[in-house]
């Protein structure tokens, strides 16, 4: 059994700091169980729909590979409340938008991820979970 003392806290704090930024993880479900925090996946596709509600927003988009085969991907966001404070809104995406989505891949290998960053065709970006250090006091 690991008991509390100041040294334990300091050590634990250092471990936590070392794990940043990818451990901005808390959600309604376990992040660590469902996504690979140590990996990134990036896919380019065309937006089909965007739902922006707690506990997670969900971006659906279609990715067509070199053989012309199209796969529907889903990418969930961290809490929309947090993202609203970063400029996201329900109108951040519209069907037909070309996007490059970077995120943490699903552990089960399905076309599903947690969004770190979305880059639009005109170059502007939306930041999701853990892709950049948050401002002081900003939750993720």
């Amino acid at each position, binding site marked *: *059994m*690991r*008991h*509390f*003392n*100041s040294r*334990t*806290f*300091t050590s*634990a*704090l250092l*471990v*936590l*700091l070392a*794990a*940043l930024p990818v*451990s*901005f*993880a*808390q*959600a*309604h*479900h*376990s*992040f*660590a*169980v*469902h996504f690979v925090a140590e990996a990134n996946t990036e896919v380019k596709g065309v937006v089909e729909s965007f*739902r922006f*509600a*707690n*506990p*997670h927003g*969900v971006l659906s988009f279609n990715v067509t590979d070199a053989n012309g085969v199209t796969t529907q991907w*889903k990418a*969930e966001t961290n*809490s929309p*409340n*947090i993202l*609203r404070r970063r400029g996201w809104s329900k109108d951040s995406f519209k069907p037909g938008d070309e996007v490059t989505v970077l995120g943490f891949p699903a552990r089960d290998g*399905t076309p*599903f991820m947690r969004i770190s960053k979305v880059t639009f065709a005109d170059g502007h970006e939306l930041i999701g979970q853990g892709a950049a250090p*948050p401002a*002081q*006091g*900003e*939750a*993720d």
Partner: protein
Amino acid sequence: MRRSSCLLLSLLSSVALAQTPDLNGFWNAQLVPAPEGQMLLDKLPPDAVFINDAGAGELGEGEYSGLQLSDEARTQVANYDFAVELTPEFACAAPSVAFYMQAPFPMEIHQDEKLIVFRMEYYDQVRLIHLDGREHPPADVPHSKSGHSVGHWEGDELVVDTTHIASGSFMNNGFNHSDNIHLTERFKLSADGQTLFLTQVTEDPDVFAGKAARYMSWRKGEGYVFPYDCDPNYSGE
């Protein structure tokens, strides 16, 4: 003489109120708890097991910070199905106060002499801390996610005792606490009043031995708690 006594009592009362820390305001959770709350950490029971998942942290599957789980809890975690977490039925199941206080979301505090209200952004939860000397209700009164909290001031520290907490996730990794969980908290402001520190000590003999402890902090900010308005139509698949 009588008038002098009244004036003196009034003056003493005003002084006491003036010395009560002012927790009112909008508070941003800190992703990494501020180490300046050491004075509260020093008051934690030395045998408490420290759970290091406050703010940005999260424990993985099978990680319980070294807590000794009861047989009942071991059975529960062994049978836990993580797939259920991505279903609409699970999406809006709010966590309890034993977990939500350390979530990385803002909160508002509204403080009066006999009542303090915590309005949590995470899952729209609300806590009432009664400071009027009341006791907890009988054990068979229905439990809730925020439980029943009574508090008092010990110097500049707010001490809160909470019971009647409905069972819910304890670590967001499939390990749930029971309806019999008991929470003792200490809140304290930094000297400049801009950081709020909290330690929690948890006892739940139904699911783990001894005591568990958490530590978290918030920075005062400008803003409002947004509605969470959880949408049960969420599905991660």
